[in-house]
């Protein structure tokens, strides 16, 4: 089962909680800034390691992350 996360980069304030707690270490700070001048967190997952565990959503203080999980039988 693989997952994906969608980060609202304008809501993100770059606190780094999701980066620190991600078990797969697939979230990184962006090298650019958003409108509020924060470096938003971004998903960097070329190998498809994200499991959609939802820990990033859980620790995010800004409700900036949506978590998706592959449905069985669904398209990838």
């Amino acid at each position: 089962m693989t997952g994906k996360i969608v980060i609202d980069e304008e809501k993100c304030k770059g606190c780094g909680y999701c980066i620190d707690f991600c078990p797969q270490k697939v979230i990184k700070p962006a090298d650019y800034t958003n409108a509020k001048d924060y470096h938003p967190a971004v998903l960097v997952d070329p190998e498809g390691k994200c499991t959609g565990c939802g820990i990033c959503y859980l620790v995010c203080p800004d409700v900036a992350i949506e978590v998706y999980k592959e449905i069985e039988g669904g398209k990838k």
Partner: protein
Amino acid sequence: MKKKVPMEGNKVIAKAAILAGCRHYSGYPITPQNEIPEYMSENLPKVGGVFIQAESELAAINMALGAAAAGKRAMTSSSSPGISLKQEGISYICCSELPVVIANVMRGGPGLGSIQPAQSDYFQATRGGGHGDYRTIVLAPSTVQEIADLVPLAFDLADKYRNPVMILADGILGQIIEPVEFKRISKKSFKKDWALTGAKDRPYNTIIPFDLDPLGMERINLRLQKKYQKIEKKEVRFEKFNMENPDIVAVAYGTVGRILKTVIREAKKEGIEIGLIRPITLWPFPYQVIEKAAKTTKKFIVVEMSLGQMVEDVKLAVGDKAEVHFYGRCGGVIPTPEEILDKVREIVTGKKQRKIKAIVSKIQETEKKPSLSSVLNVSGMKKIFSKPDSLTDVPFTYCPGCHHGTTHRLIAEVIDELGIRERTIAVFPIGCSVFGYKFFNIDSMLAPHGRAPAAATGIKRSQPDKIVFTYQGDGDLAAIGTAEIVHAANRGENITVIFINNANYAMTGGQMAPTTIPGQKTTTCPLGRNPETEGYPIPVCELLSVLKGPVYIARVALTSPKEINKAKKAIKKGFQLQLEGKGFSLIEVLSACPTNWHLSPKEALKWIEEEMTLSFPLGEFKNIDDSDRGEDKV
């Protein structure tokens, strides 16, 4: 000649007070005057004075009352809503005939109002403000230098007349930095043989502000009136400017008095002569000089940062000798010289002028850019975690890493899961989460600082079928609101309380809170909280759990996914117990405040785990399902 130094108005109030011999200061954080207690906390102890951060404005004014009764030069300060709270104390101080200096750095009102400069406390300041026939001497500086000059005078007048004196400034004067020289140092020494110093070798002294015999009480009042008449005769102060045969006389005080000088300069260019009478004492009011001016000038304009409070006094002075016009802005809006001049032109020429819009700073909404991650292809995937319905789309305005957001989300998830969104009502506090009403997709209100449990009680008793929760910070709940929370808990009020403990007053810039831990540095305990003088942190859960009223009390943290899940369970339990009609529940959340702790978000989590939990151990303190207490059962 002494050298002028640049200094902020609030700090000048504090420094001038110390130089004038103030040796007691008690106050409570409120914007825009926090630099006064902050300066006092650092500098008053250096001269052997006493600084106390009180648990409320009520306590602060009464500490000053006590210090004055003990013969010390005492001071307190606040801003508009806080001064409202001090009014009972001011009335007692007047009747007790005690010298206390009160600084009011005004902001927009009524209610919580705004934090920007205003002059809307003119009535409150000059009419007494509290109950009874009394007067407070009111000094209104218009520059930082004038603050430095008037503060020592305030202490002298207070001692001379044994009466409170108010320094009435506003947010601009409090925050502005100007060159200042501390020229006027109070040298007067007042004999205080009435003070409570112990009845050694003299008859005992009493300070008693009442007489139950009406004739006796009338005698007290008449004695006060006699004193007030003397003050009215002797202590009127004002500034006259450009008063040689003006076309119109402007009356304005404080910051507006100063803006008027620019208006006068500009008006001169087009041949309009504006005279200015700037009252320096608002009580006693300079009626005579205005009355005299009305004999020769037939047009007056009163300009205020309020909606015509001083107009009444000017009309009283002018009578039917001249016409009195008014121009004012309020709510924290500062009138520009252009708009005042416009109004003056209109009055002088009789022609309606073009409307000039005031410059109002507005919080800029950031433009919504498409999120880069959103281009990720998620088709064929199921959304498993996203914003709960009980939250709006408004982005949180909290600092990076602040746990208000996480707590908001957990509450919203619980409301969603219990299916109670349409019947939930929230009461938000004064503090960082004052904006909670924007973030929750539910009915909500704002209660005065600390009073949320009382307001929630009123809602719950009126609509028992609704689910009512308060959301309160540590200053709100554990300092100024101590009485309300203890009594709501003790009544077993069927409400849920979410208590955010971040060990400081965050909204006002990081002052010491009742929950600040020993040794922790804040802006009002710059050397670290010293339990000997500032007490120990208040363990709210432990305190309330000894009462019979509460059914569930727990302390949680949000330092890891595991702890966050535990916290959510505790919050859910609180709401469930309310749904079952069981009674009062409180969930204390140890909440990261990286900004005011001067830590990174990651370090903040570590600080909670390693330092904060030593003073505030996690766990359930009361659970009606389980008679065991103090164990980690969340």
